C-alpha cells in the first residue's frame, strides 16, 4: 500500500494498490470486503465495500457508534451498476484516516474501467439504471469533497458512517459458509472488543430479519440519521432518527416542521401516525425536487421500495402509538 498517508492524494486510484484488478474489484491482500444489513440508498447503485487497516493496528469496537479506526485505515466504497455479467463501475470513494483526521476522496472510473481518476470537485455521469419496470437514464452525481463532509460529519469531526456493530452484524452477502463479520474482523486482528452479544439491526427488505417497526427504524437510521442526529447537519430540525432513539417527538411523531419551507408539502407533521399521505417524511422522500427532497444529497431517484416500507410502517403506527402526543 502506498500513498495512504502522503499529503497529496494520488491522481489515480491504482496508485493505492487496493485492488489486484480494479475492473473486477478483486481486492488486494489485507483489503477485506464487507457489507451491511441495511445499506444507504444511492439511486439503486450496488456498492462494493472494503476495509484496509495497516498491519499491527486495530479498530476499537463500540456498541452504538461507528468503530474507532486507527490512523492509516482506508474505507473503500465502489458504486456500480450491473452490466450483463460485469460491473459498470461509476466511482470509488475513499475515506482515509490521516493523522489530522478523516479525509474523503472521490475517484471516477473511465469508460473502459482501466482506471479511476481523482475528482475533488465531483462530477456528473450519465448512467442507465436497470430498474424493475425498465431502464431509467439518470445524471448520476459524484459528490465533491465538501459534499462528503455534508454527511460524514458529527460535532465538527469527519467520521465514517457504515461500519457500526448493528449493521455489520451479519455474514458477508448473507452466506452460510462465511463467519459473522464482527467475529471475522476480530479473528483477523482488525477489530478488538467485540462482546458476546453485539446489537443487530435487520435487513430493511427482509421481514424474516425483524419486525416492521425495526426494519423501518433501520432504514431511517441508515438513510437519515447521519444528518438527523445531534451534532450533525440536520440537527437544527430537532428530528433525530438514530435506530435506538425512543423519544416520539424527536423521531418525528406529531412533530411539526421547523425550517422545511416547501419541504413541508402543506402538511403538519413529520409523521402522522396512520396517515402516510399526511406525513412530511413520506412527502419529502417521494420528491425529486432539490428544494424539497430528503435525503438532501446522494440520490436523484425515489426509492420506491424504501418509501413503501415507511408507508406501511406509518399506516400501522396508529395501532401502537397512543392516540395523542
Amino acid at each position, binding site marked *: 500500500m502506498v500513498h495512504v498517508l502522503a499529503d497529496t492524494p494520488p491522481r489515480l486510484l491504482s496508485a493505492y494498490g487496493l485492488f489486484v484488478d480494479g475492473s473486477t474489484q478483486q481486492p488486494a491482500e489485507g483489503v477485506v470486503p464487507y457489507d451491511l444489513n441495511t445499506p444507504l440508498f444511492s439511486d439503486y447503485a450496488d456498492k462494493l465495500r472494503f476495509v484496509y487497516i495497516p498491519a499491527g493496528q486495530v479498530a476499537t469496537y463500540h456498541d452504538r457508534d461507528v468503530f474507532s479506526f486507527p490512523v492509516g485505515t482506508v474505507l473503500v466504497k465502489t458504486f456500480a451498476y450491473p452490466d450483463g455479467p460485469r460491473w459498470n463501475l461509476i466511482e470509488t470513494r475513499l475515506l482515509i484516516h490521516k493523522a489530522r483526521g478523516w479525509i474523503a476522496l472521490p475517484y471516477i472510473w473511465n469508460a473502459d474501467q482501466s482506471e479511476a481518476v481523482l475528482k475533488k470537485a465531483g462530477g456528473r455521469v450519465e448512467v442507465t439504471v436497470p430498474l424493475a419496470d425498465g431502464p431509467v437514464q439518470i445524471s448520476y452525481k459524484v459528490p465533491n469533497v465538501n*459534499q462528503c463532509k455534508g454527511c460524514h460529519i458529527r460535532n465538527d469531526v469527519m467520521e465514517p458512517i457504515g461500519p457500526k456493530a448493528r449493521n455489520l452484524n451479519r455474514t458477508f452477502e448473507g452466506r452460510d459458509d462465511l463467519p459473522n463479520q464482527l467475529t471475522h474482523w476480530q479473528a483477523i486482528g482488525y477489530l478488538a472488543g467485540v462482546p458476546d452479544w453485539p446489537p443487530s439491526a435487520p435487513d430493511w427488505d427482509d421481514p424474516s430479519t425483524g419486525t416492521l417497526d425495526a426494519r423501518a427504524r433501520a432504514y431511517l437510521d441508515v438513510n437519515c440519521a447521519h444528518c438527523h442526529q445531534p451534532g450533525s447537519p440536520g440537527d437544527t430540525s430537532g428530528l433525530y432518527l438514530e435506530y435506538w432513539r425512543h423519544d416520539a417527538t424527536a423521531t418525528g411523531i406529531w412533530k411539526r416542521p421547523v425550517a422545511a419551507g*416547501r419541504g413541508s408539502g402543506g402538511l403538519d407533521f413529520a409523521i402522522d401516525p396512520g396517515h402516510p399521505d399526511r406525513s412530511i417524511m413520506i412527502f419529502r422522500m417521494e420528491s425529486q425536487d432539490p*428544494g424539497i427532497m430528503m435525503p438532501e444529497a446522494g440520490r436523484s431517484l425515489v426509492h420506491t421500495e424504501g418509501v413503501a416500507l415507511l408507508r406501511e410502517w406509518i399506516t400501522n403506527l396508529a395501532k401502537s402509538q397512543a392516540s395523542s402526543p
Partner: protein
Amino acid sequence: MCRHVRLLVIGAVGLAWASPALADMLISVAPGEGAQDRLQEALIEIAPGGTIELLDGIYELTDGLSLDVDEVRILGKGKYRTVLSFNGQLAGSEGLLVTSDGVSLFDFAIENAKGDGVKAKDVNALRLGNLRVEWTNGPDEKNGAYGLYPVGSTNVLIEGCLVIGASDAGIYVGQSEHIVIRNNMARDNVAGFEIENSYFADVYNNVAINNTGGFLVFDLPDLPKQGGHHVRLFENVAINNNTPNFAPAGNIVASVPQGLGVMIMANRDVEVFNNIIIGNQTVGISVGSYVEETTDESYYPHPKRIHVHDNSFSNNGYQPMGALGQQASLIAGGPLPDMVWDGLLPVAYGGEQVPREDWIFFSNNKGDNGAASFIDLNFATMVVAHMMGDVDFVPTPSRDIQPHIGSLPALPAVHLDLK
C-alpha cells in the same frame, strides 16, 4: 466595511491562482463554460484566509455550491453585476452552503436557487454584505424557502442585502447568538425578516415592504436551541406588507396573515422601538404566545418582558386577513388596531401571575389619531372557556392600554466578535 484584498497574480479568464502564501491566496473565477466545476474547485482549493474573486456576468450553475474553509472571502463586483444563477439547478438544497468560520460573502447575487439561497450552519463570525438573493418570478410557492439562512451560528452580520421572493423568509436567523441585521431590504417574501430561537439580535435600519409579514420574532419548542431572548428591533420600516401568503402550509410561517407589520411570539426581553409601521392591513404589531400543543416541558410559550415604545403607526388593521386575522377581527368587532396583544397568560393554564417586571408594555407609540390604537384580545378567558367545554366562546376584548403603560430597562446593544 474594509476589504483589504492584496491582489497577486491574476491571469486571464478562467481559473487562476496566486503563489501559495496562504492568507494572500487569490483565486479568480470567471463566468462561462464550466463555471460549476471551476467555482466549486476554487471553493475546495482556496486556502484559509484566501479570497475568491467573482467577476461581472452570469454564472450558470447546475449544483449547489459549498464552502468549508475558514476565513475565506468571496467577493463579487456588485449585486447586479455578479450573478450566480441557479435556474438550471439539478441538485443541492441551497445555492451556497457555508460550514466554516470567519467567512465573508460580499457583492454578488444568487438567483432562483431551488432551495435556500445562502445557508450557513454551525459557523462563527459570518459576514453577509451587499448580496442580492432573488427569485425572479415573484412571489410563488415553488420558490426556495429562505434567502439568507444562518442557523446554529454565532457572530453573524447581515448588512446591505436585498432579498426578494422567498417562500418562507427573506432574511432568517435561527438558533443562533449575537446577530446584527442592518440596512437590508426584504420585499415580496412571505416573511421579510425572521428571528427564530435566537439570543442577542439587533435588527435595525431595515425595510420590509410588500411581504406577507414584515418582521417576525418567535420561539418554537422541540428544538436543540430555544428560549429566544434579547432581541432589539428598532428604526426599521414595515410598510404595506399585504402580499397574500404564498408559503406552503404546515410551516409556522404559513399561518402569518397577510398584512402583518411585526409579530413577537413567545420570546423574552424584546424591545421594539422607533420603527415606522404603515399600511399593514391586518395589524401593525402583534404580541402573543405559541398556541400549538407541544409535549416539550422545557418550553415556555408566552412572551415575557416585551417593550414596544416610541413607534409610529399609520393605516394598519383596516382589512384583517387569514385565519388569525379573521379570528382577531371577530373578537375586535371589525378592523384591528395598530397594536394587538393576544391576552394569553400563563395563569390561564394554571400558571403563575406575571409580575410587573416581566410584563408587556406599550408606551408612547404614535398613531393616526394621536396615540397608537391598542387591543387586548383576552385569549386567557377563551382558554378557560374551552376547558369548560364552551368551544364557541368569543372573548370580550379590552382596548384599555393603561395596564400596559410602563417601561423596562433598555436592552444592551449587541456586540459581535468578528475578529
